[in-house]
């Protein structure tokens, strides 16, 4: 009798707890889904092009620095480049020291605001590293060797 009730109580606790956990996870997923836009750290160029923010509003723009777009102006400290996400492109201008990982073809997060002419005026640049980790020596390898290493890592 006591054994039977003990097992029953145990099962009851198990079922109750599993239901509670399912509800909890559902609530968390709903919250995460509701936050899907607000919790993003930056806007991608297609967001900026679709809904241009007012010029007074500070925003972050994140994307890839387009290859061949990086220019240094005549004053030597102002740079201009284009940030793209494959769908849209936004020209950016920035005056200051760039982080060492800031290179063409790599990710960047620019903090600033939209200028009147559709150029994004950045006050601060953060470099973004992607998930690819490539040894420095691979740059000096032949293309075949490098592809061999890349194949091994996939």
């Amino acid at each position, binding site marked *: 009798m006591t054994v039977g009730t003990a097992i029953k109580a*145990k099962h009851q*606790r*198990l079922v109750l*707890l599993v239901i*509670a*956990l399912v509800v*909890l*996870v559902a609530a*968390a997923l709903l919250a*995460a889904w509701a*936050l*899907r836009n607000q*919790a*993003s*750290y*930056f*806007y*991608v160029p297609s967001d900026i092009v679709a809904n241009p923010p007012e010029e007074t509003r500070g925003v972050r723009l*994140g994307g890839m620095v387009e290859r061949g777009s990086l220019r240094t102006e005549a004053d030597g400290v102002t740079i201009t480049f284009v940030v793209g996400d494959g769908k849209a492109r936004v020209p950016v201008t920035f005056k200051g020291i*760039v*982080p*060492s*990982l*800031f*290179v063409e073809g*790599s990710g960047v*997060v620019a903090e600033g605001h939209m200028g009147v002419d559709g150029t994004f005026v950045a006050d*601060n*640049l*953060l*470099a*973004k*590293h*992607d*998930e*690819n*980790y*490539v*040894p*420095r*020596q*691979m*740059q000096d390898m032949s293309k075949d060797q490098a592809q061999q*290493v*890349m194949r*091994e*890592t*996939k």
Partner: protein
Amino acid sequence: MHGFANPARFLRIARWLMPLCMGGGAVLALAALGWGLFFGPAERLQGETVRIVYLHVPAAWLGMAGWMGIAAASFTELVWRHPLAGIAARACAVPGAVFTAVCLITGSLWGRPAWGTWWVWDGRLTSMLVLLFLYFGWMALSQASEAADGGQSKAPAIFGLVGAVNIPIIHYSVIWWQSQHQAPSISLGKSAMAGAFLYPLLAATLGFSLLFAGVVLARMRAILAHQQAEARLRRKALSEGF
């Protein structure tokens, strides 16, 4: 599992398993760190700063694993009333919090040269900081319930389960939301990380995980010994007529 309900049986196994985990983990972790720090290559863009990954990634994993341990122990405690579950949860908290802090500190040190900032409030960094505060809250609650009623309260176990929702949020923060932190380099069966980084990283992760297991076993033994000593003192006081 209820074979281990008897603390004497658990202690017999923990007595030899603990030094094995600690020794094996220390040797493996040190060897992996030496491998990565002194013999591994520099990264194409990050340069030498990539080497912090051999500490950062194992610490991130164990910070999250510590809470998964608390959650699993809490579930076991609530459903099966397993006598060792609460002790296991308490044993996971401090090492979990320490590894979470190591993850945040090493990440910040890497962020300065790589990103150009010590800290940003993006989804990944914020959810990891929340995990550290959850650990602090859990430890305070567990100590308070220990002091109040000898750990009979279910509050820490419930907190342990509810806090576990943060773990998938940490993991998916870089996938659901645009974030400063990069997406995962390693997922099941795939790696965007060259082998020269991946193998020492996997070795370091295994080594630190063994160390973590050793610390948890040691802390469980210490908590059990403390409880036995307290019970003995109480019995002695009773028999002497106080």
